[in-house]
């Protein structure tokens, strides 16, 4: 098959096929993706390609996006919730150059959202697809290093071991301390790693109207959660799953419902709490919401014996 180009965008990079990957590779990835959608939460192996960026920077997500994107799509890329971080800016530019597609920073306007570490605060719709970049797709890996064994455990639904990890956290710290990549069970069957999103975002995955695709480039796995599918975070009856909460609200937009980043503002440990989702924060500010704009002073250090500022 010959390469194709975007007729609407003649200024795309010459010599490259539409969205960088050749059409046969895209078909291979789409086959894996279809299988993944058909078996929610199951990790489908695929022939991951070398991409023009290092492993760990989103090679899996990029390949999935490249294989599903069309000329009429609008792409949004976020990294840690923000549209303006290096990873997000470069992946957005990559697709603008190689596919000539429209890009946006607005969640509502995007048809495909590629993400690292967050799910947008604004609820996603049925006509949107979210693509996650996944470093380690195997949720059982931390306790069972053998691939043959983890596959068998998935096949036979032998998932007791996942709770051993949670047990350990409660035994040592009195509560479940896992804060990100919090394991979930999809459609009462496969245990899945939701990629390193904060557990704050886990409830958003449950019965989400948008299709969720996960690409792990280095580990060569694709998995998916189809729209309106049950996604349950693992927990114990007497230690139920909870999400993070903050005493503060966003210093810029005043939101008390979004996931907040803690930004250190000076040498004395003052902190500014701001929304991690930059588009959500900007939309709220444009609508007239306003936060205090002030950093929170450092908490007194109760462990230090000497006055603060003097320690080495």
């Amino acid at each position: 098959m010959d390469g194709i180009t975007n007729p609407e965008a003649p200024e795309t990079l010459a010599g490259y096929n539409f969205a960088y990957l050749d059409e046969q590779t895209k078909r291979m990835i789409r086959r894996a993706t279809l299988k993944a959608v058909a078996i929610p939460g199951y990790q489908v192996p695929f022939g991951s390609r070398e991409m023009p960026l290092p492993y760990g920077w989103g090679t899996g997500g990029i390949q999935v996006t490249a294989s599903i994107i069309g000329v009429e799509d609008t792409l949004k890329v976020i990294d840690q919730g923000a549209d303006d971080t290096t990873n997000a800016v470069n992946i957005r530019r990559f697709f603008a150059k190689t596919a000539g597609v429209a890009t946006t920073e607005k969640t509502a306007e995007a048809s495909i959202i590629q993400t690292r570490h967050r799910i947008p605060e604004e609820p996603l719709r049925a006509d949107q697809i979210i693509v996650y970049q996944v470093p380690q797709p195997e949720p059982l890996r931390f306790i069972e290093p053998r691939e043959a064994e983890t596959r068998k455990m998935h096949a036979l639904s032998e998932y007791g071991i996942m709770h051993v990890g949670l047990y350990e956290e409660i035994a040592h710290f009195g509560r479940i301390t896992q804060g990100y990549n919090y394991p979930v069970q999809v459609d009462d069957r496969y245990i899945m790693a939701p990629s390193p999103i904060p557990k704050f975002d886990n409830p958003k995955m449950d019965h989400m109207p948008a299709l969720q695709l996960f690409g792990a480039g280095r580990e060569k796995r694709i998995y998916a959660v189809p729209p309106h599918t049950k996604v349950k975070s693992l927990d114990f009856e007497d230690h139920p799953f909870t999400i993070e909460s903050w005493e503060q609200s966003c210093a810029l937009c005043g939101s008390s419902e979004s996931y907040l980043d803690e930004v250190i503002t000076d040498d004395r440990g003052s902190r500014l709490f701001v929304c991690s989702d930059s588009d959500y924060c900007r939309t709220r500010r444009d609508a007239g919401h306003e936060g205090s704009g002030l950093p929170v002073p450092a908490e007194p250090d109760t462990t230090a014996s000497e006055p603060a500022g003097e320690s080495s």
Partner: protein
Amino acid sequence: MIDRDMAPLLQVSDLSRHYGGQVGCEDVSFELYPGEVLGVVGESGSGKTTLLKCIAGLLPPSAGTVSFDTRVDGPRDIYAMSEPERRMLMRTDWGIVFQNPRDGLRMNVSAGANVGERLMAVGARNYGEIRGNAVDWLTKVEMDLGRIDHLPETFSGGMQQRLQIARNLVTQPRLVFMDEPTSGLDVSVQARLLDLIRGLVRQLGIACVVVTHDLGVVRLLSHRLMVMRGGRVVEHGLTDQVLDDPQHPYTQLLVSSILPV
């Protein structure tokens, strides 16, 4: 105690295992009744561990059958079962105490989690109950409860072995396999461990297959004894009878080789 009116718990018939041309074990048959402890002795390389692996579902035999009296369906050939069924059986109704605790324990999680793992594997999802069970079983195997959240790596050999026993007994299995449970332990720790195993086995009515080269261990623990040599069973009988009046020349040699204190 042993109930011979009941159906045998484990029935092994004409079991053989070859490694290519090498004989692992050959033509072994026996029955094990509920609550009975069977000792298997023999020198190194006599096929004891091969036999144990075959009957414990870890190594498919070359010939012969191993039939276990399951709670629901009665006697079934364990190698004719589907793999999920067999793995489920191994997690619930069976226990395996390995010679090397590293094979039987998860070294990177705490003692409590090691005991709780089997419960979580069969669906326990209440932290308080799992913790309570772990405390209960660690007490039964005489472990210091202050060590419940410590890693097994930090335990002595005897403690690791006791932890393995607690981990296996927590689902109240009906059959436990033990492969040299006391080797590598010093004599005083060995004595305490044997005392503990004997007490638990009697108290809970667990059937046991104990493989060992140590005649003292079987004298203390087992009701019946099988002597193996070159992969074959050369003598089989009540423990005291075999040890006090050995018939086969090899058994005579074995018994006379015990070092007097």
